[in-house]
C-alpha cells in the first residue's frame, strides 16, 4: 500500500481514512473553512480597521502610515509628532497635494471617535456600522481585534497547556508506582481549588498582561490532558513492543515519545478543540469580570460587560454575543467532527 500525501507530508492509510471521515462530516468541514477564513482575515486586522491610512500619496511620493510613523511635518503640518490622520486639518493638508487610501473601517480598536451624533455609546450609523462603545470606540473595529486576540490567546494556551499536560501525563504514567500515586493526589488537590477565585485573586495583585494572564490560566488548564495521557501511558508501558524496545536498549525518553505517545495522540487531538473553546471562554469570563486583559485591550468579554452596563445600547451586547456564539459554535462543530473522525467504530457515508 502506498502512503498518500497531504500538504507534502506523508499520510498513513489510517490517517487518510480519518481525513476522509472528517471531510464526510459536512458541518464540521465547513465550520473549519469558515473559521479559518475569519481567523485569516482578522490576522490582518491592521489593514482592515485602522485609524492610519493604508497608503498616502503626497507631493509625488508614496507613504505607508500602516508601517511607518511619519511626523506631521512630512505633510506640511506644524508638529514633529506623528500625524493624526483622522484630524480633518491633516486630511486637508494631504489632499491638497495627493490622496489618502483608507482601510474599510477607518478606526482602530482604541480610536476614540469625536464627531459622534450623540453621547457614547452611540447607535449604529453609516460611519460606525455597529455603533460605538461607552468610550466612543468603534464596535466593529473592537470586534475584529477582539476576535483575533481571543483566538490567538486560545491557540497559544491550548498548545502550551497540551505540551505541559502531555509531558506531565507521560511522565506520571510511564513512571507508575509512587510517582504516579503522589502526583495523582497532587492533581486532586490542585484541581479542587476554586479556579476562578484563584485567578481573580492573582489578577487583583498582579496587573495581568497577555502573557501573565496566559500563565495564570495555564496554572489550571494543563490538567485537562494529564488524565487521558497518563492512562494511555499506564497501559502502553506494558505493551510487548514497548518491552521489546526496552530490551533493545532504547532510552526511556525515546520509548515514551516514539512508541507510546502516538497511542495517546488520538485522545489528545480529540480533546484539543474543546480545550481551545474552554480557553477562549475563560479568557472572556475574566475579561467580563474585569480581571482579564489590561484596560483598553480589545476584548469580547469587556464588550459584553459594557452591554450589561448599558442595556439602553443593545448593539453592544448583541454584537459581542453573536461573535462569541459564532466563534464557539464553529469550534465545537470542528471538535465534534475531529472526535468522530478518530472514532474507529463510527461509520461514515462514502
Amino acid at each position: 500500500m502506498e502512503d498518500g500525501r497531504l500538504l507534502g507530508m506523508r499520510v498513513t492509510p489510517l490517517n487518510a481514512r480519518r481525513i476522509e471521515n472528517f471531510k464526510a462530516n459536512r458541518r464540521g468541514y465547513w465550520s473549519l473553512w469558515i473559521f479559518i477564513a475569519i481567523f485569516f482575515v482578522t490576522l490582518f486586522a491592521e489593514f482592515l480597521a485602522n485609524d492610519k491610512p493604508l497608503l498616502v500619496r503626497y507631493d509625488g511620493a508614496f507613504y505607508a502610515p500602516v508601517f511607518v510613523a511619519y511626523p506631521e511635518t512630512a505633510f506640511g503640518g506644524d508638529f514633529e509628532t506623528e500625524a493624526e490622520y483622522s484630524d480633518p486639518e491633516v486630511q486637508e493638508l494631504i489632499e491638497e497635494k495627493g490622496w489618502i487610501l483608507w482601510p474599510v473601517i477607518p478606526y482602530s480598536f482604541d480610536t476614540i471617535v469625536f464627531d459622534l451624533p450623540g453621547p457614547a455609546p452611540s447607535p449604529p450609523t453609516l460611519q460606525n456600522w455597529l455603533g460605538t462603545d461607552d468610550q466612543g470606540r468603534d464596535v466593529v473595529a473592537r470586534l475584529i481585534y477582539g476576535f483575533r486576540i481571543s483566538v490567538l490567546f486560545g491557540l497559544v494556551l491550548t498548545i502550551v497547556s497540551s505540551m505541559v499536560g502531555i509531558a506531565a501525563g507521560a511522565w506520571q504514567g510511564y513512571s507508575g508506582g509512587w510517582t504516579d500515586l503522589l502526583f495523582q493526589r497532587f492533581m486532586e488537590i490542585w484541581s479542587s481549588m476554586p479556579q476562578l477565585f484563584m485567578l481573580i485573586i492573582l489578577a487583583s495583585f498582579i496587573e495581568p498582561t497577555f502573557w501573565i494572564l496566559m500563565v495564570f490560566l495555564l496554572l489550571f488548564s494543563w490538567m485537562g490532558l494529564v488524565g487521558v495521557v497518563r492512562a494511555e501511558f499506564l497501559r502502553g508501558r506494558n505493551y510487548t513492543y514497548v518491552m521489546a524496545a526496552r530490551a533493545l536498549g532504547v532510552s526511556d525518553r525515546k520509548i515514551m515519545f516514539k512508541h507510546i505517545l502516538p497511542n495517546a495522540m488520538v485522545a489528545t487531538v480529540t480533546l484539543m478543540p474543546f480545550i481551545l473553546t474552554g480557553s477562549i471562554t475563560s479568557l472572556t469570563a475574566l475579561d467580563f469580570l474585569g480581571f482579564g486583559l489590561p484596560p483598553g485591550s480589545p476584548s469580547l468579554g469587556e464588550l459584553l460587560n459594557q452591554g450589561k452596563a448599558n442595556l439602553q445600547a443593545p448593539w453592544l451586547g448583541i454584537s459581542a454575543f453573536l461573535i462569541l456564539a459564532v466563534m464557539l459554535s464553529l469550534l465545537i462543530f470542528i471538535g465534534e467532527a475531529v472526535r468522530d473522525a478518530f472514532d474507529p467504530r463510527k461509520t461514515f457515508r462514502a
Partner: protein
Amino acid sequence: MTGAATGDGPALLKVTGLKTHFPIRKGVLAHVTGQVYAVDGVSFEIRRGETFGLVGESGCGKTTVGKTVLRLIEPTAGSIEFEGRDITRIAKEEMRRLRQRMQIIYQDPYSSLNPRMKAADIVGEPLKVHKIVSGGALRERVEALFERVGLRPEQLDNYPHQFSGGQRQRIGIARALALSPSLIVGDEPVSALDVSIQAQVINLLMDLQEDYELSYLFIAHDLAVVEHISQRIGVMYLGRIVELTDKRTLFSNPLHPYSEALLSAVPIPDPGVTREGRVILTGDVPSPINPPEGCHFHARCPYATERCRMESPSLKEVEPDHWVSCHLHEGNVADATELRPERT
C-alpha cells in the same frame, strides 16, 4: 544450590540461585501483603553455541526466568553471569549497552511489533539506538537482515499488519539479530504460529545459530519443539527446575515424576498405539503465592512420601550431567532406579 551444569565449553550465561518474587500490594498505602514466588531458586548454565530448552506448564515461571536473565524484570536474589561478568546489579546505563549482546524474541508476533512503525524502522531501530550505522548504510544492513531471515526487500516499507504471523515473527528475529548478540532468549517464539510455520521458524533459528554461533535460551511448553532444537533441557515446576539434563537422557530416562508425567502427555501421532502406564496428573498447579511446603510437586506426585511433604529436595547430580530435584533420586542412578516404586 550449586551451579547445576558442568560442561566442556565455557559458560556464556551462568545463573545461580535466581529468585524473582513479585510483591502483592494492597490498600491505600500499598503495603506488601504477600509475594508471588514466580521464580524461586533457579540455577543453570548455557554454553556458547548451545540451545538450552526450558519447559514447563503455563505459570511455572519459565518466561519470568527469561526476562529476569535479560534484567527486563529485576531479580530478587541470586546472580546472573554473562560472558564471565556479573550483571545482576550493574547500572541501568551499562545494562543498556550490554543489551547489544543479549536479545529476546517474543511469543506474540502481533503485539511485539509497534503497529505504527514500518518493518524497516522496527528492524533498524536497535542499530540506530546503539549508533552502529545510520543513513544509507542502515538501510543496507536492514535489507541484508531481511534477506537473511527470509523476507523480501520489497516488504521493507510495509507495516506489521501487512505481514502474516510467520513473517512477523521473522521481523522479530531480524530485530533481535540486528545487533549480532551472543545470546537470544526465545520466549515461546513459535507457540503462536501454526504447525507448518513453526517448523520453518525453528529451522531458521537453527540455521542462524550455526552461522552466527548464537546461544539460545529457548522457552517453550511444546516438548516436541524443544526436543528438536535444544541440546540440554531444564524442566520447571512452580518456580524451580526439577530436572536438568541433555535431551536424549531426558526423553529416554526421565527421573523426576513430573518430567515423566510431562513426557507421557506428549501425543503419539498414531491411533493404533495405546500407551501403557501413562502418568496422568490430577489437580492443578498450586498457586505460586502459597507454594506448598516441602517439595512443590508433592500434592500431585504419585510417589509422594511423608518426607516430601516436610522437606524440600535440592537439585543433585544423580548421574553425570543429569540433575534431579527429588528425594527418590538422591543416591546414584542405580539406587534411584531401585527406589522408584512400582507404578499403579
